[in-house]
């Protein structure tokens, strides 16, 4: 007996909305009833972050965008085309698998020590970046980059990881040299994470599995990324859960250069 004859379409929509975006997409090729149920706004409204309308309003002040598109279209649009907000300092999108927010703080929004001083750092425009400008390191002894994000703009009940997005123009300064990285969420009892890593792609097959995973990796958009640390955003009980601070530094006194910094990305990390 065909189950969809028993269940009305909005029940099916409700069931689909309790799965995940990936399952919802898969369900659209099950049968015509499922397809119809999947396209309903009820499903995708649940997958969108609760403040998605604010995000869109920040981007385009007219509400015509939200009115004319279905929730489903809005979801996928946000996944594939993150919005550049805050004067080009922040990029907000959704992670397709889970629908959680994925936020990148661009170089302009980071606190780079000596970042404004011209001989040391430069602000250039690079075609591969989605940000209007990235920071380029010419040469510096004290490398210290800070990123800060307010915890309540991230999605709740999610495990996040911070990734440092960069490119190496010349490798010799950074090969075999460790940089320190830390991620600290305020009010988490001061137990931030701290690690050291080398800013290069782990090409060496002899490296241990674990090390290789946590080394720098190449992304699909041509940049490299390295995980700085993890943190968890819980339920937003209070108004202000504080900030999440990320820091990358190397201050051991040798000269470094040839680093392009696009920004720091915060995206959901599946545990394990």
């Amino acid at each position: 007996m065909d189950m969809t004859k028993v269940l009305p379409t909005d029940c099916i929509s409700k069931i689909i909305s309790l799965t995940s975006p990936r399952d919802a997409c898969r369900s659209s090729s099950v049968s015509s009833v499922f397809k119809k149920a999947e396209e309903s706004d009820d499903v995708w409204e649940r997958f969108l972050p609760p403040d998605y309308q604010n995000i869109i309003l920040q981007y385009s002040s007219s509400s015509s965008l939200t009115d004319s598109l279905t929730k489903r279209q809005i979801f996928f649009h946000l996944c594939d085309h993150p919005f550049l907000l805050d004067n080009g300092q922040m990029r907000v999108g959704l992670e397709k698998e889970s629908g959680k927010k994925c936020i990148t703080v661009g170089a302009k929004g980071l606190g780079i020590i000596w970042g404004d001083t011209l001989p040391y750092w430069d602000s250039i425009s690079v075609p591969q970046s989605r940000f209007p400008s990235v920071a380029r390191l010419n040469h510096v002894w004290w490398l210290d980059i800070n990123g800060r994000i307010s915890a309540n703009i991230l999605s709740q009940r999610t495990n996040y990881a911070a990734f440092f997005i960069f490119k190496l123009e010349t490798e010799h300064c950074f090969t075999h040299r460790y940089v320190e990285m830390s991620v600290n969420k305020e009010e988490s009892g001061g137990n931030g994470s701290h690690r050291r890593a080398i800013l290069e792609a782990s090409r060496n097959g002899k490296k241990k599995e674990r090390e290789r995973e946590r080394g720098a990796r190449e992304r699909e958009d041509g940049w490299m990324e390295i995980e700085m640390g993890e943190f968890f955003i819980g339920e937003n009980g209070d108004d202000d859960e504080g900030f999440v601070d990320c820091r990358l530094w190397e201050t051991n006194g040798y000269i470094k250069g040839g680093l392009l910094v696009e920004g720091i990305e915060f995206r959901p990390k599946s545990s394990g």
Partner: protein
Amino acid sequence: MVSTMMENPRTAWSRDVDLLRCNDATEILIMKVGDVMVRNLARGAHKEANKHLAQWTVLGNPKMIKAYVWLQTSDGSIQQVEQEIAMFCPLICHEIIQKGMGSSKNYAICLPQRVSPAMLSLILDYCRFHQVPGRSNKERKSFDEKFIRMDTKRLCELTSAADSLQLKPLVDLTSRALARIIEGKTPEEIREIFHLPDDLTEEEKLEPLKNTTDDPRIRLLNRLYAKKRKELKERERLKNVEVEEEHVDERSVDDLLSFINGNDRDPKEIKTSKNRKKNRRKKDQQKNSFLKEASELDKETNGHNIRCQSAEADTIGETSNIRHTEDDTFSHKETNGHNIRCQSADADTIGETSNIRYTEDDTFAHKVEFDDGDMDDEIDPALQEKIDREVADFARRLNSDWPMRMKEFLSSSGQERTSMHFPTNGNSFLRRHDYPFLLSRFLSSGVDDISSCCAGTGLRMEMTPYKPIQMT
């Protein structure tokens, strides 16, 4: 007025009586309490609803006689249920309070059609447990978990019944259970679990999320075309690999045809396996170069030639898998260049039941079949002879009519829009060779719906969900 309900109902009541000086004061109170209760139930706020239920029962039933309501299920049977349990369902609550139904057998509340007696009894079990106010959250949770342990069919029916009675907490519970079942399963598995018909066309399944600019069908076609090209290249590459002499040349049609004719001088002669192998390789070569030419010409003449040439190649190369195509498609019209196909079909073209899946398996399958044909006794000589004759005939025709046909084709391709004859095998799947043709026609004629393109040709576009090509 609501807040006064929280205090002792009697004081509130007496106050109201003074206020209204009406005998129906009790009824008004009952209505008010009932309203709040219904609203709470609908919201799923059971604790609040229970409080009001208690007050309501007291107000309406000062002697505290256990009250029953009469419910009628979908099959027409009527049963008596304790009122306080039945009231847990907003719909029933609504019926009792606002319509005054359910007080006797004649005025039984008609439950929605989705509520069968079995489902009603399950729902009542649920209500019976949860309406008791004293239970802890842990107890309720563990009851819920045990409660939903039933087969999927019942779970669906229960969801449906609970939904019709607006019993939100139960709907949530069952929906979550069903969601857990669906999570992580492939569409086929889901179909199996719920016994759903597979009623989406392949195209609909593959229809990607609509980007505002792209037409998904064009993208699909492009993808398929790319696949086909890749496969052709693969085939070439594989055939090149197994051949000794590397004749990768672009011989003209005439050369090749004369070669064929020369090769098959004496079909009745029993070929030694060596000879056969050589022949096969040469034939493969021809096929190979045909295919190469095919991909060249493809770009020039919109693929018409390909079919005739590759059809011919098929004839030569795969004699072990000959099938007759439908007679319908072989009308001997001399009106357009599509004729070529008809003639090649005449030559007992091979039915390659290649649907659009383009797996490498097909290529290998043909080769293997050929091998088998070789390894067994000679190819049936009579059949061979027949084939050779037809090939020669075809070659002759081709040779003589070629320039004329080309002219015809080029002039008529603009006019013909609807009468498309695709050579198909018995199952009317598109042969893989037809793809470039179809694509080019599609693109050139501006038909924006490929299914209408194929409509009326007896063709069924069969596409399988996108899977990476298995290169075995």
